[in-house]
C-alpha cells in the first residue's frame, strides 16, 4: 500500500530546501515551479529542480513536480525538462477539465518517446482549484490511466466562490466531499488542501482529522513541522488495530469451522467490514506499527 499522507511543498528555487526536502520523511515532496516562483526565476528554478532530481538521491521519498500550466509560457518547457529529470509524478495546477489532463499527457508521451523512456514512466496528479474543476472532478479523475491522484486547492477555489477560508471550512465542505468522492469512484488518491497558519497547531490537527474523516488519503503541507501531526492522525489507534485484528481472527475462526457466517463482537461481519479491517492493518504496518506476524496469516 502506497502511503500519500503528506505531500510537502518545496519552492523549486530554494537550493537548500530542494537539497534537504526528503530528510523530514514526508511521504512525498513536491517541488514547485509554479506559484512560489517569480516570473524572472522560472528558468533557474526549473534548472535547479532538474539537476537535483538527476543528481541527488531522495532515498525512497516520492518526488513530485508541480509544473506551470499549459496556458503559461513555461508549462511546455517544464514538461520537457521534468520528463528528462525523472520525478515519480508530475502535478498539474488548476485543472478544470479532462482535456487539461489529456493535453499534458500527450506532451509527456512525446517527451518520453524522444528521451527513449518507457511510456508511462511518469505518473500524473492534478490539482483542482476552481468551481468548474470540482464540477468536473470525476471526468478529471478518470481522464488518464497515468493519473494517480487529485488534490484540492482551496485558496483559488474560495476566491472564485466569492468567499474566504474559515476555520470550520464550511465554504469548502462540498468541494472536499465532491473531490474525494470522485477520487474514490475513480480508484485514485485524494489529497486535501494546505493549511497555512503554521502557528495554529490545534487548528491544523482538527482540519487533518476532518480530512481523514471525509476519506482523504492525505494532505498537501507547507512545512516539515506539519508532517508528524498528519502522520499521527492517519496512524490507526491501538483500538482500531485491535478491532481490525478481531475481524481477521473471526474470519480465520470461521474458515477453521467451515462456516460462512462470521460474527465479531456480536456483529455480523460483511465484506465492507473486512475491507476496512484490511485497510486499517495495512495502514498500521505502513505507519510502522508492529503487528504480530501470526496475526496476519488468516
Amino acid at each position, binding site marked *: 500500500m502506497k502511503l500519500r499522507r503528506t505531500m510537502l511543498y518545496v519552492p523549486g528555487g530554494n537550493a537548500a530546501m530542494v*537539497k*534537504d526536502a526528503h*530528510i*523530514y520523511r514526508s511521504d512525498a515532496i513536491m517541488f514547485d515551479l509554479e506559484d512560489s516562483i517569480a516570473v524572472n526565476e522560472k528558468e533557474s528554478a526549473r534548472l535547479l529542480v532538474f539537476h537535483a532530481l538527476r543528481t541527488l538521491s531522495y532515498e525512497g521519498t516520492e518526488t513530485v513536480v508541480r509544473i506551470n500550466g499549459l496556458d503559461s509560457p513555461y508549462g511546455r518547457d517544464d514538461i520537457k525538462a521534468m520528463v528528462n529529470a525523472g520525478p515519480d509524478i508530475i502535478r498539474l495546477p488548476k485543472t478544470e477539465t479532462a482535456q487539461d489532463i489529456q493535453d499534458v499527457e500527450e506532451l509527456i508521451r512525446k517527451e518520453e518517446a524522444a528521451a527513449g523512456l518507457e511510456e508511462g514512466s511518469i505518473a500524473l496528479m492534478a490539482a483542482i482549484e476552481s468551481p468548474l474543476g470540482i464540477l468536473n472532478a470525476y471526468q478529471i479523475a478518470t481522464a488518464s490511466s497515468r493519473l494517480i491522484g487529485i488534490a484540492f486547492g482551496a485558496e483559488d477555489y474560495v476566491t472564485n466562490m466569492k468567499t474566504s477560508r474559515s476555520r470550520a471550512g464550511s465554504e469548502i465542505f462540498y468541494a472536499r466531499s465532491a473531490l474525494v468522492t470522485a477520487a474514490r469512484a475513480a480508484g485514485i488518491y485524494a489529497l486535501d488542501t494546505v493549511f497555512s497558519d503554521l502557528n495554529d497547531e490545534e487548528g491544523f490537527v482538527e482540519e487533518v482529522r476532518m480530512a481523514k474523516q471525509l476519506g482523504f488519503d492525505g494532505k498537501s503541507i507547507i512545512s*516539515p*513541522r506539519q508532517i*508528524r501531526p498528519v502522520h499521527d492522525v492517519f496512524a490507526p489507534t491501538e483500538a482500531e488495530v485491535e478491532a481490525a485484528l478481531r475481524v481477521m481472527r473471526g474470519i480465520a475462526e470461521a474458515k477453521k469451522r467451515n462456516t460462512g457466517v462470521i460474527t465479531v463482537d456480536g456483529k455480523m461481519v460483511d465484506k465492507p467490514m473486512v475491507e476496512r479491517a484490511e485497510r486499517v492493518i495495512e495502514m498500521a504496518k505502513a505507519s*510502522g506499527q508492529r503487528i504480530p506476524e501470526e496475526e496476519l496469516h488468516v
Partner: protein
Amino acid sequence: MSENAIGREIRDSIPGYEKLKPFQGAFANTPLVRQEKGNRNLPRLNKLLDTVEQAVLKTGLKDGMTISFHHHFRNGDKVVNMVMDVIANLGIKNLTLASSSLTTIHDELLPHIKKGVIGRIITSGLRSKLGEQISAGIMDVPVLFHSHGGRARAVETGQIKIDVAFLGVPSSDVYGNANGFTGSSACGSLGYAIVDAKHASRVVLITDNLVEYPNTPFSIDQDLVDHIVVVDSVGDSSRIATGATRITSNPKDLLIAQNAADVIAYSPYFEDGFSLQTGSGGASLATTRYLADYMRRRGVICSWALGGITSQIVKMHQEGLIKRMLDVQSFDLDAVNSIAVNPMHTEIDASYYANPLNKGCAVNKLNVVVLSALEIDTNFNVNVLTGSDGIIMGASGGHSDTAIGSGLSVVVAPLIRGRISSVVDRVLTVVTPGESVDILVTDRGIAINPRRKDLIGYFHGSKLPLYTIQELKERAERVVGTPEPIKFGDRIVGLVEYRDGTIIDVIRNVAD
C-alpha cells in the same frame, strides 16, 4: 619580650609557637572597622571607591599580573571593556586576561592586545573579530582555552593565579554581598564569578545597583571582597537576558531535536529520576520540548536538571516534570526570575559544576547531556571551537566536562552545514575526546560510538535511523563532496586544554 598595646608583657615566642605578635590596639590591624562609635552612619563600614581607576590603583595591579572577569553578562557585558580601558590609560602592560569566556562585545579588546596591555589570554571561548584576529596570529603567546570545569580546577590549584578579579555584579551592598538576580542588569547565577571571588588575591566588585546592607541572599560574600565601585551600568539588560530563550522554528533543528529526544527516550537512561542537561543551541534546546512530551506520556520525572538553565527547563520544573535545578549560568530572564525566588533552583559555582579534581562535581552525577558540535570526526572527537574555515569562533564551555561526566552524551548537529559535512575524518580542533561521546544525532541519521557496544546492542532492532559514523560521513559527502583542506601556518595561536590540565590539541594560524 615586649609590652603590647595594653601594657601586658608578651614573649616573642614560646615552645610550640614560633613567633608571637603583641596586640597593637583594637583598630590597628582591622582597617575596615570604624574608630568613632555612636554614629549610625558608618562611613568606614564600606569598601566603596569612586572610580574604577581608584580600584585598579588600590589593588596594586602591575605589569605582568593576571586579571579575571566572568561572562554572565554575555553580549550585554560592559565591565571587561570598561576596566581594560582604565587599565590601558594607567599604562599597565602585559597582563594575562583570564576571563571565563569572551563574546562578540569584546572585540573592543583588540587595541589593548595590539598595544601590549593584554599579553596573554586564558578563556573558554573567543568569537567574532577577536577570534579572527587571534587566528591570524596577532598575539605572541597562544591563547589557552579551557573548559568551565577546567578553569575552576586551574583557579583552585593556582595554575591560574588571579591577582585581581574584576567582577561585575547586578547588585551589591557596601560590604560586598552580591547576587546576580537583583537589579536591572540581573543575569541570574554567578557560578563562574564565585570561583574567582573565592580564589583571587584581590576582588573588586563593579555594580550599577548598590543596595541596602545586607544584600541577602548573596552569592558572593562580603568576606571575599576588597573594593566596590558603583558605575552607571554594568551591562545592557536587553543583551544579558531576554524573556525566554525561544524554541527554534527551524525545521532542521526541530528534526534533529526530535531524533535526539527519540534516542534518549528509547535509551536505558530514560527512567524515572534521571538527570539531564541540555545546551542552549537551537537543536539541543528544542530537544527538551520533545523530551517533555515523552516524559508526560510515560510518567517519567527528571530528578534534576543541570547547567545553563533555560526557560524551557524552568517551565518543565513548574509543570512538575523536573524536581530540582542546579544552575551555573542562567540563560534567560525566566531562569533569572526563577533562581531569585525558587528554593528548588540552586545556584552552583563552576567548581561544584564541573571541576574534575575536587571531591565531587555535579557533572559526574549527570545521566544525560545533549551537546552541540561544529564538527565531529569518525572517532567521535568533537570540535566546538574553530569553524570550518579554521577560525576560532566558539567556546569549549562545559562540553568536555559533561561529555565525560554523563552516562549518555548525545551530540546534536546538522549532517550538512551550508555546503560542508559536519562529520569529517579529522576535526580541525579537538575539544572533547571521542571516548567520552556516545551518540551523534543528525537530521539524516544517528550514529552510536562503537565503544558503546552496550548501547549498540540496546538499540539494535529499534526503528531509529541508525548508521555508522562513516556511513553518515559518506551520506553527507555524496551531496556536498569533500572540501579542500584549510591551509594553516606554522604558528600556534591557541592551546586547547582538556579539563584535567593536559593539552588535547593546538590551534594554528590560518594562512592567508
